[in-house]
């Protein structure tokens, strides 16, 4: 089946079966490999993208369900908030292996867009769907606070 998807502001035509998860359309059809596969069952968050402004697990979204939606992947996260998050991530060296970090950054960026000054509890709520096996959580929390501070100032 042919689908038209709006990814990172561009219309893209893809050919896929209707059940194909958005994750594999992004990666295997569109070559957007920043979004990662980690579990395939919405448990780890490595595949997090924004769909109409919400952080969603692309591994569990059939392509047929996201036609006409605005999809933003890590490659398209380039506004002021996203940049602040990525700068904060870099400044305190959050990543270790890095494989989950695209998903972490997308979730954190989405959080800060909705809530410019998140509490620790807000961070727990927004980020607990993103597993980091390297357990960089202490720094993820710090970097979100740092980015919030930068955006405020």
């Amino acid at each position: 089946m042919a689908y038209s998807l709006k990814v990172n502001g561009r219309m893209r035509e893809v050919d896929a079966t209707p059940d194909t998860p958005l994750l594999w359309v992004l990666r295997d059809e569109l070559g957007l490999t920043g979004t990662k596969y980690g579990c395939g069952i919405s448990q780890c968050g490595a595949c997090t993208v924004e769909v109409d402004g919400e952080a969603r697990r692309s591994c569990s979204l059939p392509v047929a369900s996201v036609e006409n939606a605005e999809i933003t992947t890590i490659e398209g996260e380039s506004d002021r908030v996203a940049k602040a998050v990525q700068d904060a991530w870099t400044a305190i060296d959050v990543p270790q292996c890095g494989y989950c970090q695209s998903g972490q950054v997308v979730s954190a960026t989405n959080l800060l867009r909705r809530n410019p000054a998140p509490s620790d509890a807000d961070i727990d709520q927004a980020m607990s769907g993103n597993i980091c096996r390297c357990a960089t959580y202490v720094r993820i929390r710090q970097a979100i606070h740092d980015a919030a501070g930068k955006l405020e100032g």
Partner: protein
Amino acid sequence: MTDTRTPRTGPSRRTFLKQAGTAAAGLVIGVHLPQAARAASGAANVIQGDGSRAGAAPNAFVRIAPDDTVTVLSKHIEFGQGPYTGLTTLVAEELDAAWSQMRATAAPSDPETYKNLDFGIQGTGGSTAIKNSYTQLRRAGAAAREMLIAAAAEAWGVPAGEITVRQGRIRHEATGREAGFGSFAEAAAERAVPSEPKLKDPSDFRLIGTDVPKLDSRIKATGDAQFTMDLQPEGTVTVLVAHPPRFGAKVGSVDDKEARKIEGVLDVKQVAYGVAVYATGFWPAKKGRDALEITWDDSQAETRSSEEIMADHRERAQARGKPAADRGAIDDGLTNATKVIESEFTFPYLAHAPMEPLDALVTLRADGAEAAFGSQLQTVDHQVMAKTLGLPMEKVRIHTMLAGGSFGRRGQPNGELAAEAAAVAKAWGETDRPIKLVYSREDDITGGRYRPIYVHKLKGGLDADGNIVAWDQTIAGQSIIAGSPFSGMIQDGIDPTSVEGARNLPYAVPNFHVSLHSPDVGVPPLWWRSVGHTHTGFATEVFLDELLVAAGRDQVEGRLALLGDHPRHAGVLKAVARMADWEAGAPDGRARGVAVHKSFSTYVAQIAEVSVRDDGMPKVHRVWCAVDCGVAVNPNVVRAQMEGGIGYGLGAVLYDEIELKDGKPQQNNFDGYRSLRIDEMPAVEVEVIPSDAEPTGAGEPGTPPIGPAVAIAYHRLTGQRVRRLPFVKSVDA
């Protein structure tokens, strides 16, 4: 892999020989920015793809480009533990380079040039990356510096002794001449390599010991970092293999009719590892695999449940096994004790579950083969891949990719993944066709290679004054290295990885005995972050606490009194007690537990502050951690490894177990095999003890102490001793 190691040997003269063209040639993978574009971008501090040709080569580890960038070839895989940054720091220090001009990339597989000096082959493990490279990479930087100076002296017609190098600039004060490294890189590379380059005095270090920014942080925050999973050159065929559900089983019969009907499935082939489904991408490969009808031949399979294996080990542990350590007279010590305490500890199967499941890209060529993947033991993988393909090693080129974690998973002693990837490429047969083997998460977690089940039986004796006079520890569990290329480490029937951390208990106990049973089990084992210390650290520290409690001793003072001969253990323990203000104690509703454990020659003490959740499980609020790893090349990376080691260990002790039922793993993804999440991560404070001792590891030693520290705190809160991990299997809700 273990902290029982071969003697350290100095870097050989050969290490510094210029590489021949063939050895220096690597793979060109994916997007390959032209040199100028890469330098201009400023962000590409990690060169992904063929970094080995990034400029002139004064030696095997250093490339200097005309634009002054210096690329260090890392012989160690980067999977988050920081060698790209650490090894590059060592070179930059002695080269007197500016950090901003430094780049890192993967060295090609080369068993001689890029061998781990602790292993004798190329590979990463046992927290040895910095330890074995410390002098070698400093010498590489110092040699390159001397060669640049010599080239400049010749060009400028001035004495070499009058030339200075600072922050990447070569200067001759008297004549006012100045140049960057790039100007003399080619000329320097033509010169003889100094055999004894002069190394800096540590007091002159500008970079070693400082928190230089990690080279790979930016590309990992932006999604630009390329992992094996992300490699998909034109025409790539994705392969998922249906693996046997029981270890040791074989394919009986296959019906692939339905699988072949799936759109995107290209072929189905039986291979030694199962049934391979070849497709245009992951999703059709997975659907095709799901549609296979396979009957398995279980005649050679392990069909026991983990409960049966635990019961077997428990029974064996009732009697002593082969002696691994013995001093004093253990039987007399126990007989003469006024009080004897006995405890038994049980440890489950653990999967590593790195974020990036196993994967590998293999392309057959007319004259050989190329492979790109997160190879952790390159020499083993290289040999196995060559053998599987029927090629000599020099016809197979391996490019080590950034890998999404390992925790041991990628360090397979038998090169299993490399063999499987080669086998599926060979079965396809076509040259110049990239074949990408991908494990699903389910393949990863049900794929075996677990930290084995271990049972520890401990007997401790106290005298009338509460002194520990006897310690008798029997361990039962599968050998990780038996039957592998590492089996030579087994001496007198003792696999050192089964008893490390127990046989060398640091506490002064006059009558001491450790013994081992290593039963055969048909479940493939593997080292898991900190290897033997994953269980010995827990059993020894919790049991010591039981004895200290029985004697009415304090956790800190009681330990310090027994650590007179081990000042570095005592040092980290005192430091962590100070950090946590141990005397002040925990706030109401919380308790603290202490653990100190040395692994991989690094000393770590932790204090965990814990409360009890409504469901009866521990909630860890804070962890203080003191670490002595000798010279900390990058203290920030060491702190990060302690933070991560604590989180990784905590998730496992709280939740994780792979249960086998009739030989089949019952957990297959992160729903059943829980990972620690951000809301469960304690605040962590790490102090790196200043030291001028030889640098030792950081990747693993943060993991062993957290389990016992939490278990001890939990005991203070509830009175319950957790002796069977994970906690969820032990606590009363």
